[in-house]
């Protein structure tokens, strides 16, 4: 049964409806898949966003980077090893795109590392196939000027997720360890909007930040610009493993939920257009690492399987039947649940190359009460 992607939904703002109509006119197949997601969820099916980490190359070295432990620079400097595992290539991406499409999955995020330093970025977009999938890219904004934003739009990228860590220029630059990065973000905002790209700002919430005037300023800034502000809780993984004091408390999450009433701000737990998933592990997001491992969220370094060995469907099924990952829950598993954080920290500490393979971290014998 076909779902009319342009059908008026009273729950949508005029702006969101206009965006959907525009997409339906240009990419009806993608729009139709996106429009079916709620219908799929009602049947117990899932359509997670696929985050694709083809390369971890990055021009930044951020204090809170969740990918740092995957990077060659970390493996070489800290562990004195080279990662010789098989890497995903364009053929693997094409195959993944086809498998995902057959499952009704509709969204890919190119992430990293910094995607815009990838020499084969355009080829990756083509391999995903922007006529089959809604393509999003993460970026720190350093290389996103008017010309690059226009080019992204031309090759089929629909949306940019741009990282901004503080409205105080010095704080952002310090957090990102990159002088001048705040100014580049501001330039990238204008460039993305000028190019007609959908844009959301992405920021990391560390403990206590939700109460600050600076955070409220960022909420106001995004709302006045009519940009969504996506808030990612700091998780005790990657570089943040060394900063447990960044991990939020429930009060931070609750303050954010109050700010959602006033500003265009949201987290991955925020109900969205009738979808009340709570924590989105597997149900709403998965990550494909450069070695083809699939993890249930960007911050959990334990694999559910490898795309070179196991079908995407079986990997997703493993995730959904896992008692930590499949069930509905209102909190962030890796950002808030102390028992899971402890388990994850203990297991991942024993591995130099991440993620921990299926069967050694997650497995079908997992139990909440071990």
């Amino acid at each position, binding site marked *: 049964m076909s779902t009319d992607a342009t059908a008026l939904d009273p729950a949508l703002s005029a702006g969101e409806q206009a965006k959907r109509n525009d997409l339906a006119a240009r990419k009806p197949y993608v729009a139709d898949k996106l429009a079916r997601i709620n219908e799929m969820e009602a049947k117990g099916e899932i359509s997670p966003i696929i985050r694709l980490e083809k390369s971890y190359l990055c021009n930044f070295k951020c204090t809170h980077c969740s990918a740092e432990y995957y990077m060659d620079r970390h493996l070489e400097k800290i562990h004195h090893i080279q990662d010789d595992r098989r890497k995903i290539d364009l053929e693997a991406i094409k195959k993944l795109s086809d498998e995902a499409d057959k499952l009704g999955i509709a969204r890919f995020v190119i992430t990293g590392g910094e995607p815009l330093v990838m020499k084969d970025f355009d080829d990756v977009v083509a391999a995903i196939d922007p006529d089959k999938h809604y393509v999003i890219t993460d970026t720190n904004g350093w290389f996103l000027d008017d010309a690059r934003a226009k080019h992204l739009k031309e090759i089929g990228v629909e949306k940019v997720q741009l990282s901004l860590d503080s409205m105080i220029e010095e704080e952002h630059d310090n957090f990102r360890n990159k002088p001048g990065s705040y100014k580049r973000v501001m330039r990238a905002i204008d460039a993305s909007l000028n190019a007609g790209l959908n844009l959301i700002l992405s920021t990391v919430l560390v403990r206590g930040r939700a109460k600050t005037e600076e955070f409220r300023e960022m909420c106001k800034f995004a709302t006045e610009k009519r940009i969504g502000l996506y808030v990612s809780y700091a998780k005790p993984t990657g570089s943040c493993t060394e900063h447990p004091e960044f991990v939020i408390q429930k009060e931070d999450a609750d303050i954010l939920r*109050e700010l959602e009433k006033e500003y265009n701000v949201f987290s991955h737990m925020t109900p969205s257009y009738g979808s*009340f998933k709570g924590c989105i592990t597997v149900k709403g997001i998965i990550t494909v690492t450069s070695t083809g491992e699939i993890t249930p969220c960007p911050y959990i370094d334990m694999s559910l399987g490898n795309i070179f060995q196991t079908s995407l469907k079986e990997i997703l099924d493993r995730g959904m039947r896992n*008692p930590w990952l499949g*069930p*509905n*829950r209102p*909190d962030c598993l890796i950002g808030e649940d102390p028992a899971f954080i402890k388990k994850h920290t203990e297991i991942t500490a024993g591995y130099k190359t991440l993620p921990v393979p299926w069967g050694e971290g997650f497995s079908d014998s997992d139990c*909440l009460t071990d």
Partner: protein
Amino acid sequence: MTVLFDANGRCIPGPLEAKVQRKVRRYFRCDQPKYSLNDIYERAGRFIGELTLGVEEFKEHVTRMIREIREDPNLANLLSGPFVPFILPQQPEDDIGKLLQQKYLPAVANAFYDTYPNYEFIDHNKTPVLDRLRVAAATRHQELLEKLADSDVVGIYFPAFDGYSLAAAREQISYLPPSFSLAGSADTCGALVAYPGLLMRHDGYAPLVWFGALETENSDEGFHIEAYGYNLNFNRRMHLGNADEYWASGLVFSN
């Protein structure tokens, strides 16, 4: 002797066919309400409807029911978990969805706003409830509604079915004494009027509570109330027979 509840007041699953978590972490839980019976009585009268029973009679009923539970070694553990007494004014039987929409949800909303004027009660449900909700078999909820048609009902609400699927909670009722029933909409809402902060926690998350005794023509569908930060939401979702640790159904002990 068969102890029916564990040391935390959770109902110990019997030999159930439906999905249930045999052991739970109690990560999603309610704190024990610090209630006042006078306040509960006053709120029920103000927000749900006029009561026939006097406040002293209400208090006597509650005291007696708590004593009855405490003195039964098979039941006593139930009082180690969270619970809240409630009173519902007499209500002639009518369409359950209509009463939910026109009486009980507005009562929960008004009681919530009275206690938490800075926060919101939101009805997110977009699907019709009129002429759709019915009492599921073997839940004993129908008996409570029949009693309610004759007189005010005093009860105690326990979110004791955490980690149970709705089907498992319904099955489990058959292993409990006759004074127990599975909570539907009237009694769950009664408990939330009695203590609007039942699902409010500042240092952790409370469970989502289902109207487990109710069903529709779609066996995968259910209605529930849950906290969202400091706010309260009514909604509907597909439970698909699952037994998530975040989900609880309520157990009611009534007069």
